[in-house]
């Protein structure tokens, strides 16, 4: 059904292969390979077996990263996830110490996360005037505060029933179980964000929430759901965290939110919303994990490793600006 002028518009996508090759995500793959190469060069112990052996303690955060990607695409932020991990782990340990069966302990861990996320989502969706930074700033302090009160003067707690949770730290061959779980979750989250109607709605909201609303998208309901999911994933993270530390304290999870946001941003997801692919964050997470393992094996100061990661983060977000500056310089040179 052509219009009066008979003008046609093309619907053929062009240059998809080129776009794929030159995307941020492909760059991530290259950097990942670079890190693996680096690891092999600097450390004789950088074998697949060893890497998988040290991976579990870094893997739990990736669960949160998957959900944080959704929150960032929405254009929101959640800095309370670390505290949710703390609270979930704490309540799980308390339940465990009280003699509850393992299944209930797991349930409490995850449901605590769900409840916390649900609270975040409730406030965010009903008081839309409030920036989510402030909301989660408040809840961050509250969740950790509840954990502090629950832990009492000691400030820490250990799991009594260590055997049950060891299930989660088992290996299949050389690959830890947690790795498979992460892969499964990652696959689900990435596909949902990139290929489903729900995922597209997130991008719409993050790009222009007003236009999304006028197009019939239930913006507040979706935000509520995503925050709840983030809290739940923090609960899952807490579970795997317990599987490697067997206990919780008032400082559990401190800094997780920033590390997770750093992974997402490094992976190409912008904090302004509506931009980036979750697979980028996924690659970024493993880049950071493998780099940390490599540097750890040559006994680099753990703090120095954080310095390097911080520098990597800043350089990665400066790349567009550097690119523009170079382009401008080239233009000026051409004019002269």
């Amino acid at each position, binding site marked *: 059904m052509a219009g009066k002028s008979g003008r046609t518009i093309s619907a053929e996508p062009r240059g998809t292969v080129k776009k794929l090759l030159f995307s941020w995500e492909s760059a991530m793959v290259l950097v990942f390979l670079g890190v693996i190469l680096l690891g092999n060069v600097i450390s004789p112990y950088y074998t697949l077996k060893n890497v998988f052996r040290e991976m579990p303690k870094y893997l739990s955060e990736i669960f949160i990263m998957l959900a944080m990607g959704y929150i960032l695409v929405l254009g929101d932020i959640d800095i309370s996830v670390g505290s949710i991990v703390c609270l979930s782990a704490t309540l799980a340990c308390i339940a465990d110490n009280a003699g509850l069966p393992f299944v209930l302990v797991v349930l409490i861990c995850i449901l605590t996360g769900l409840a916390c996320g649900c609270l975040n989502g409730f*406030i965010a969706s009903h008081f839309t005037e409030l920036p989510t930074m402030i909301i989660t700033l408040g809840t961050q302090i*509250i969740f950790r505060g509840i954990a*502090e009160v629950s832990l009492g003067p000691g400030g820490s707690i250990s799991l009594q029933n260590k055997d049950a949770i060891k299930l989660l730290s088992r290996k299949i061959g050389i690959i830890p179980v947690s790795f498979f779980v992460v892969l499964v979750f990652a696959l689900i989250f990435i596909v949902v964000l990139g290929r489903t109607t729900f995922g597209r709605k997130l991008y719409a909201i993050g790009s222009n929430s007003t236009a999304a609303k006028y197009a019939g998208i239930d913006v507040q309901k979706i935000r509520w759901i995503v925050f709840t999911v983030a809290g739940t994933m923090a609960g899952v993270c807490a579970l795997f965290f317990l599987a490697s530390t067997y206990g919780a304290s008032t400082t559990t999870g401190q800094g997780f939110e920033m590390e997770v946001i750093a992974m997402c941003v490094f992976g190409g997801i912008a904090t302004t919303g509506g931009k980036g692919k979750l697979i980028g964050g996924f690659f970024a997470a493993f880049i950071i994990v493998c780099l940390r393992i490599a540097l750890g094996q040559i006994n680099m100061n753990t*703090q120095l490793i954080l310095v390097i990661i911080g520098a990597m983060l800043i350089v990665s977000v400066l790349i567009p600006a550097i690119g523009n500056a170079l382009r401008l310089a080239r233009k000026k040179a051409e004019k002269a």
Partner: protein
Amino acid sequence: MNKKENGIFRKITGSREASLLIVLIILLALIELLQPSFLAPQNIAQIFRNNALTMLMALGMLCVMLTAGIDISITSVLAFSGMTIGLLQKYDVIHNTLLLFLIGAAIGAVCGMLNGLIISKGKVAPIICTMGFMYIWRGMAYVISNNAWASAEDVSGFSDFGKSGAPGPYIILAIAYVIFFIVMKWTRFGRRIYAVGSNAEAARISGINVDKTITLVYTIMGLLAGITGVLSVSIYGSAQPNMQYGKEMDVIAACVIGGVAMSGGRGTVVGTFMGALIIAVIAKALPLVGLDSLWQNLVKGIIILVVVILNVVTQRVMDRRALARREM
């Protein structure tokens, strides 16, 4: 068009500072009731001393948030600066108080300037840039200390400056607050900060150097963080790489309660001061109602949430009232 009610009631409820003052007065009155001797001068001095670090950095955060930015690297800068001057004393390089403060300030200013340049010229989101530096400076603090720390005896002479009862910290606080109050209200530079946060495009068009303003604002924040690092060593008598870890949120909370908007352009020195004071007073008052320090954070978090939600709710009520007055 909304017609605002005139009169004193409107003026009071409309002014954030006035509402905060009322809350503060009520709090102090309640405390006075519960424990009359509480409001003795030494207790009040104690409140200021224990919260001096937050109060000092809140001034810098005010300026940063006024430009619609944020800086979460402040405690890392604090640690880096504090650790440096701790080590300088530990290895007997420098012991002069004034010099130590100057060095700390310089370190902080450089850290802050890096933030400012990257944010303004590199067009990087403030949360990301300062997050990166948060890791970098904290890591550097550990690296230079080689995981050791400067103990009380290392800094013994210096800690006299900030020991309990010494006037040093209060003087610094007072001077800082007076300077910022004057600058923010009566200098062109101060008003430029408001302009940049309110409408950066308009500011740029009217000839204000937005990049320079933003860089300066973060430099000032860094400078304050650096000075606070030195002050921290003096007050607590030691320097460790993990100083004030996680405390940047307290500073942000003080500003938020004090009425500083994250979207920029709104907030005052007076409001920030009262925000910090209210949090400090509540923390102090908790034991009086039978809640020990374990509950401190939980109550603080609840208060922050309640305050910001209340703000939204009252605004909605006011808007609805304004609508109701419209003749249809």
